[in-house]
């Protein structure tokens, strides 16, 4: 068990390195002039000015050298400066990260809060009216793209009914808004992000609840007199396992979803930063963000791989990789 964990952790290092190299490759090596975003087409630069700009950005060095320079600096904690306004990338990330964390955690709580009871209901009473209704809702939620859902929610709750604010965080420049204000601004984006993962999570929970507990064990527990909440408590650990597994599958969705939702609701988090960085050819910022997101996915999967055998003794003997949540 310890060997398995050690092996996974050790392999994570080179994987992370590979991730950083791929991210750098994607952002820097493709055709497309990185200067194009910064040079105003109407004011042509003289040959020397352009050469100076290229040298300053080190575009005259080969790719591997540029990557090595970035790597050395990153190891020291220096992630470069944003092309857009010259601020250190690390500082920009630190500002935006709490917002994204708040949004994603709220969405996660909403997903689990909605998916678990519904999954349980659908597993236990698959033909009831509620189950059928929720199934219809699930199908609808899974074919409406998140950006459409964002627009619909905004049009309904913000424009038509005026119950909730349209966008932003409600944080005035000088201080923080009241908790109530923050909550009202958080409501729509979190709901939108949750909708994206909710259909998948509910179906998964339904399958998990239906199959996690073997019928014989269930019958035996019932025969001993366990009912309702006691029954759930008895099998809590067994039921929790697939839900932990689900977490690993949801994290990449949440990261991708954040990009759309933050952009649509002007939420000042890492996702919106990503769009700005990529559209504005802000390579240092985009690089750091790509690395962060891929690293988070890697960390989540690593956590699951370690946690799962720890919770489920049946999986401990093998040294192989545990299966992943379906794509």
């Amino acid at each position, binding site marked *: 068990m310890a060997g398995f964990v050690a092996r996974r952790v050790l392999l994570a290092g080179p994987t992370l390195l590979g991730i950083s190299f791929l*991210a750098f490759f994607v952002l820097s090596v*493709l055709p497309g002039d990185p200067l194009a975003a910064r040079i105003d087409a109407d004011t042509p630069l003289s040959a020397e000015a352009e050469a100076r700009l290229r040298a300053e950005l080190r575009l005259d060095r080969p790719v591997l050298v540029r990557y090595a320079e970035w790597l050395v600096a990153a190891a020291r904690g220096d992630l470069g400066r944003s092309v857009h306004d010259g601020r250190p990338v690390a500082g920009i990330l630190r500002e935006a990260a709490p917002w994204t964390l708040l949004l994603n955690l709220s969405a996660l709580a909403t997903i689990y809060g909605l998916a678990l009871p519904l999954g349980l209901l659908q597993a236990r009473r698959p033909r009831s009216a509620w189950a059928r209704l929720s199934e219809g809702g699930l199908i609808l939620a899974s074919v409406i793209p998140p950006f459409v859902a964002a627009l619909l929610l905004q049009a309904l709750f913000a424009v038509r009914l005026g119950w909730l604010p349209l966008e932003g965080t409600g944080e005035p420049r000088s201080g923080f808004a009241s908790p109530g204000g923050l909550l009202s601004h958080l409501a729509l984006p979190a709901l939108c992000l949750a909708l*994206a993962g909710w259909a998948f999570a509910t179906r998964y929970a339904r399958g998990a609840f239906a199959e996690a507990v073997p019928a014989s064990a269930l019958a035996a527990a019932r025969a001993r007199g366990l009912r309702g909440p006691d029954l759930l408590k008895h099998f809590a650990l067994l039921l929790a396992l697939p839900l932990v597994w689900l977490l690993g599958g949801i994290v*990449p969705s949440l990261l991708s979803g954040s990009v759309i939702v933050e952009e649509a609701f002007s939420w000042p988090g890492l996702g919106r930063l990503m769009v700005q960085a990529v559209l504005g050819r802000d390579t240092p910022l985009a690089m750091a963000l790509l690395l962060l997101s891929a690293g988070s996915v890697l960390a989540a999967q690593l956590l699951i791989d370690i946690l799962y055998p720890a919770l489920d003794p049946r999986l401990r003997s093998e040294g192989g990789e545990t299966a992943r949540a379906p794509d």
Partner: protein
Amino acid sequence: MHRTDPAAVAGAPGAASASAGVPSERPPGARSRRAGLALLGGLGLLALAAPRLASEDPLLDLRLGSARLTVPAPVPWSERRVRLEESLAPPSRRHLCGTDLLGRDVLARLLHGTRASLTIGFGATLGALLLGLLLGGTAALRPGPVDLMLGRVIEILGSFPPLLLALSLVAASGQRGILPMIAGIAAGRTAAAARFARAETLRLQGTSFWLAARASGAGPWQTARRHLLPMLEAPLLVQAAFGIAQAILLESTLGFLGLGVEPPIPSWGQMIGEGRGIAAVAWWTIAYPAAALAVTLALLLRLPKVDSRVW
């Protein structure tokens, strides 16, 4: 052959039953699957026919001697001609789905948008599946160091959320168009396809006929070609349908963010993005492309009755 997995049996019911000597049975859900396939085929035909169906040029223009027969297109509007005087017209007999900000007919743009979405969806999924089969299949057929290395490559590629990878690739390429979109989305989906290919190949390697073929001396590649590929048909169809849905979703998302195909070529996601500010007053600019997206996705996802995950 009876012990093979249900998916394979569903994919080749005739073959399996014929070899066992029982009358061929249709697997459950085949009728709805065929209906779904037919509808998708219809959508594809629509995409192909769009330039003739929605155009200001007549559908038929025949001259017979001194007589002339002109049949206008069913949707007699161009998808790109700007008519500012008809900007934001609500749905009417003249414009069945209304017009957008620049006065372009929404229905015409909707029909033409089918081409962009389906082309990119199919193209990207094809690319991802080919690359994925190569990566994952090789990893499964050659266990040991090759598997380990390829497994790391797949893991590295798969750690990037597909949207972020596609976004970065398309934006970094600096070009807008169908080919960068296909390349970017294919890259984002390759890891999933590779994992699928590797898992399926590993699973099929445990079957009896694989062992028999290898025991009688066939090499891994030969056996794979003759026995594995036919067995992969059914799961591949499932994965392809799901993949196309994801690709279309990615394409529309990128279009919404402004990175889609170059205007004036319409794309559903782009239409939704363009309608963003005016949704409250001109609901038709968003509602119709959104409905088109939802219907297409629903068709694709119901096809193999696979659970959908939005990203």
